């Protein structure tokens, strides 16, 4: 199973993600530079965290215009699983692949701490191994992580079951404590917290099992053909 990790100028979680995909879950991962295209035979795409283009103008907006995003859009339409983490989530909303926007945290602080997520949708390619309402201890590291949607979009998100993760308590002022959403088809998922920083017991002081299920879900979704 081939997984593409897209690299933008300023990505800085690409190697962590690559390490987790290859060393922990034994997947065939490849880096893809944002100016190039994605191969047709790819099975999943991950947009990692970081500070693409130094967060200039708005986090993710310049990267959202990168040539590779056209390919990501095509793959999204085909139903291929796509995950955006942190800056990757910001890029997915700025490119229109996911609804909403990520604003500066209510505290205006860069927040780097452990949070708890609640799984609200266990039908996506990245959450199918979870029980509904399962708790995931996971770190966040962002300055612009406050998910916001207007009332009409919020109604649509709820109606279509597009809210994938909520924080268990108020963290940054996100609408309805939303930490991650998916598109209407459910194959494109974006989340602010960092699962790639939480799947190994060596760096997870709480419990690394729940975060691992995000990647186990992807494996299950693809029929675990490594």
């Amino acid at each position, binding site marked *: 199973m081939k997984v593409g990790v897209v690299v933008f100028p300023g990505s800085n979680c690409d190697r962590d993600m690559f390490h987790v995909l290859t060393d922990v879950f034994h997947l065939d991962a490849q880096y893809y530079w944002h100016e190039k295209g994605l191969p047709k035979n790819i099975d999943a795409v991950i947009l990692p965290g970081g500070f693409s283009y*130094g967060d200039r103008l708005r986090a993710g907006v310049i990267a959202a*215009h990168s040539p590779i995003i056209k390919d990501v859009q095509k793959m999204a339409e085909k139903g291929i699983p796509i995950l955006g983490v942190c800056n990757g989530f910001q890029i997915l909303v700025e490119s229109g692949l996911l609804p909403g926007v990520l604003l500066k945290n209510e505290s205006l602080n860069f927040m780097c701490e452990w949070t708890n997520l609640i799984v609200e949708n266990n039908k996506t390619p990245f959450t199918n191994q979870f029980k509904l309402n399962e708790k995931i201890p996971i770190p966040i590291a962002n300055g612009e992580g406050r998910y916001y949607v207007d009332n009409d979009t919020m109604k649509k998100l709820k109606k279509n079951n597009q809210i994938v993760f909520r924080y268990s308590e108020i963290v940054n002022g996100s609408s309805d404590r939303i930490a991650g959403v998916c598109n209407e088809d459910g194959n494109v998922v974006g989340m602010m917290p960092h699962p790639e920083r939480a799947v190994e017991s060596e760096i997870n002081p709480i419990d690394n099992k729940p975060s691992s299920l995000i990647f186990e879900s992807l494996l299950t979704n693809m029929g675990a053909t490594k």
Partner: protein
Amino acid sequence: MTVFNVHVTIENKPGISDPEGDTILNDLVLKGTHKTVSKIKTAKMLKFTIKEKDKKSAQSKIKEICDELRIYNPMVSKVTYTVISE
């Protein structure tokens, strides 16, 4: 006394680099089809609402506030005041 809206625009003085403006120009605008754009400068705008007796005193009061509280950095910033409505 009348209510005035005063817009205070703070930007870098000429000669002080503006890497954010340069990135928006080079990596977003010029990579599209808009080749006639030659410069983009970022700025921060503060919108004040203030009660004063006339337009002139509204602007001078806001200027006084911005100077006193160092709302902008006089070494690197250029600041412009626009009284929008009365």
